[in-house]
C-alpha cells in the first residue's frame, strides 16, 4: 500500500492545483505588463500592423470609397478631440486675424512649391462628403466636410517620382512642446475622398475641429486626420522627422497604419 491514502493524494492535488492557478494568474498579470515593456516582444506583436496594411489594401484596393451618409444622420455635435484650442503663439496670431495671413505651404519633393491662402483654397473645386469619423478610442461621429481634394493640390505642385509619403505639419502642440504632425502614403493621398477640409457642416471649420484647414483620410482612424495645418511636405521617408515614426501619436506607440 502507498504511504499516502487516496484522499490525502487528492487533497494535495487540489491544493496544488489551486496554488498553481492563483500563481499563474498573478504571474500572468505581472508578466503581461513586463512583456509590454520588452522591445523584442513589442516588435513581434507590432508585426501585425504590416499584415493589417497588406490585407486591408488587398481587400479595399486603392479606390474603394468610405461609406457616405444622408444629411439626416449628421451628429448634432461633432466632438472635438486632441487639441481643441491651440495655444501656440503662431496659431493665436493667425487666428486673431481670422487666418487672412495664414498660408498653406506645399513643398519637399515637388516641382513647384506652393503657398496657398485660405481664399485660394476656398475658391478651388471642392468635394463635399458626409462621412463617419472613427476615433481610436472607439466612438464615432458623422459630419459633412468640404474642401479641395488633396490629389488636385498635389498634381498642381507636381509630385516628384521619388516621393513616397505626404507629411502634414500642424500649428498645435498637444504636449506644449512638439508640433502635431501626420503622414500618409500615396495611395491614401490620391484617394478621391482625401480632402483638405475648410468646412464642417456647411460652416467654416470651428477652432475645435481644426480651423482653418484639416486633413480628411476617410478610410483611417481620427488621429491620422491632422488639424490646424500649416504645411505639407512630400518626402521619400520620414525617419528624420521628430520621433521618426511618421506622426505625433505614432511616436508615442500608435501604429502608423490606422485602417483598423
Amino acid at each position: 500500500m502507498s504511504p499516502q491514502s487516496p484522499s490525502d493524494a487528492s487533497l494535495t492535488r487540489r491544493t496544488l492545483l489551486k496554488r498553481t492557478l492563483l500563481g499563474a494568474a498573478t504571474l500572468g498579470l505581472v508578466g503581461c505588463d513586463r512583456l509590454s515593456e520588452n522591445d523584442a516582444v513589442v516588435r513581434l506583436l507590432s508585426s501585425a500592423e504590416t499584415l493589417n496594411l497588406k490585407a486591408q489594401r488587398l481587400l479595399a484596393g486603392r479606390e474603394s470609397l468610405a461609406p457616405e451618409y444622408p444629411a439626416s444622420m449628421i451628429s448634432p455635435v461633432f466632438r472635438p478631440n486632441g487639441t481643441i484650442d491651440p495655444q501656440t503663439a503662431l496659431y493665436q496670431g493667425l487666428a486673431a486675424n481670422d487666418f487672412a495671413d495664414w498660408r498653406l505651404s506645399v513643398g519637399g519633393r515637388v516641382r513647384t512649391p506652393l503657398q496657398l491662402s485660405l481664399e485660394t483654397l476656398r475658391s478651388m473645386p471642392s468635394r463635399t462628403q458626409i462621412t463617419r469619423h472613427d476615433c481610436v478610442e472607439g466612438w464615432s461621429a458623422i459630419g459633412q466636410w468640404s474642401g479641395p481634394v488633396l490629389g488636385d493640390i498635389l498634381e498642381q505642385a507636381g509630385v516628384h517620382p521619388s516621393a513616397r509619403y505626404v507629411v502634414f505639419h500642424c500649428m498645435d502642440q498637444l504636449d506644449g512642446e512638439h508640433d502635431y504632425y501626420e503622414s500618409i502614403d500615396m495611395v491614401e493621398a490620391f484617394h478621391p475622398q482625401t480632402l483638405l477640409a475648410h468646412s464642417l457642416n456647411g460652416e467654416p471649420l470651428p477652432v475645435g475641429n481644426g480651423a482653418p484647414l484639416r486633413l480628411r483620410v476617410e478610410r483611417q482612424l481620427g488621429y491620422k486626420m491632422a488639424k490646424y495645418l500649416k504645411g505639407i511636405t512630400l518626402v521619400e521617408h520620414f525617419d528624420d522627422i521628430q520621433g521618426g515614426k511618421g506622426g505625433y501619436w505614432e511616436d508615442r506607440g500608435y501604429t502608423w497604419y490606422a485602417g483598423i
Partner: protein
Amino acid sequence: MSGPTSFDNSVTRRRRHRLPVRAWHWINLWCLIVLLLSGLQIFNAHPALYWGSASDFDAPWLEMYAMRAADGSIDGITALGPWQFTTTGVLGYSGDSVRGFPAWATLPSYQFLSMGRIWHFFFAWLFALSGALFALYALLSGHFRRNFWLDRRDWRGLGQDIGNHLKLRFHAHAGKYNSLQKLSYLSVVFLALPLMIVTGLCMSPTINAAAPWMLDLFGGRQSARSIHFITAFSLVLFVIVHVVMVLLSHPLRQLRGMITGHVPRQSKSSDPESPS
C-alpha cells in the same frame, strides 16, 4: 470509428482527442485570454456602448463612469439603459483611478490603449488563422459530422438532456457528446467565434470601404462594436460553463485527454464514460 468514442489497441488507454483538436483548443485558450484582456483595455479608452452608426453621447446603452458621492468619496457607476448600479472597485472606479474595467481585467494592467491594440491585433490574426485552419480540418476530416452533427435521436433526446443537466447529472450520454454539448460547441464554433471576427472587422474604416454591406448587416459601426462586446461576454460565459462542467466530471481525466489525447481506461463497471 474515431473521435471521442474511438478505441485504440491499447488495453489501458483509449483515444480521446486528436492532435488538431488539442492544438486548437490550447491555442484558442491563449488567444481568447489575450483578446479579452486587451479588448477590455481598448474598451476602457471609451467605456460606453451605443447602437447605430455614430455615438449619441447622451444615450449609450452601457456606460461606466465615476461620480463623487455625497460624503466626498468616489463611486464607480455602471449605467445599463435607464438603470444605474454602484460598482465601485470593479467597474467605473477601481484602484484609485477612473477606468471601465479594473487593472486585473486589462492588458496591460494600466491604461495603455496603443499597447492594448498591438496585443489585440496580433492575437486576432493568430486566432483567425488557427480558427480557419481548424474549421477546414474539422469539416474535411468529418470531425464535425461525426461528433457534433445532431441526428434525429439527438434532437429527440434534447429535452431529456436539459433535464439531466438541470439535475446536475452529466454522464447520461457519456463517451460521446450529448445534444446540449453539441449545440453549444456548434454555436460557439460556427456563430460566436466568426461573429467576433466579423464584428471586429466591421469596426475598421478600411473594411467599411471594402465591404459596406457589413455595416448594414449589423446596423452600423457602433452596433458592431456593441455586438463585439456582447459576443465576447457570451464567450466568457461559455468558458465558465465549460470549465464548471469539466470540474464536475472527472476534471483531471478530461484535462489529460485534452493534453495527451488519451485517457486511461477504467474498469467497465465503474467507467462512467463507456458508451451505453
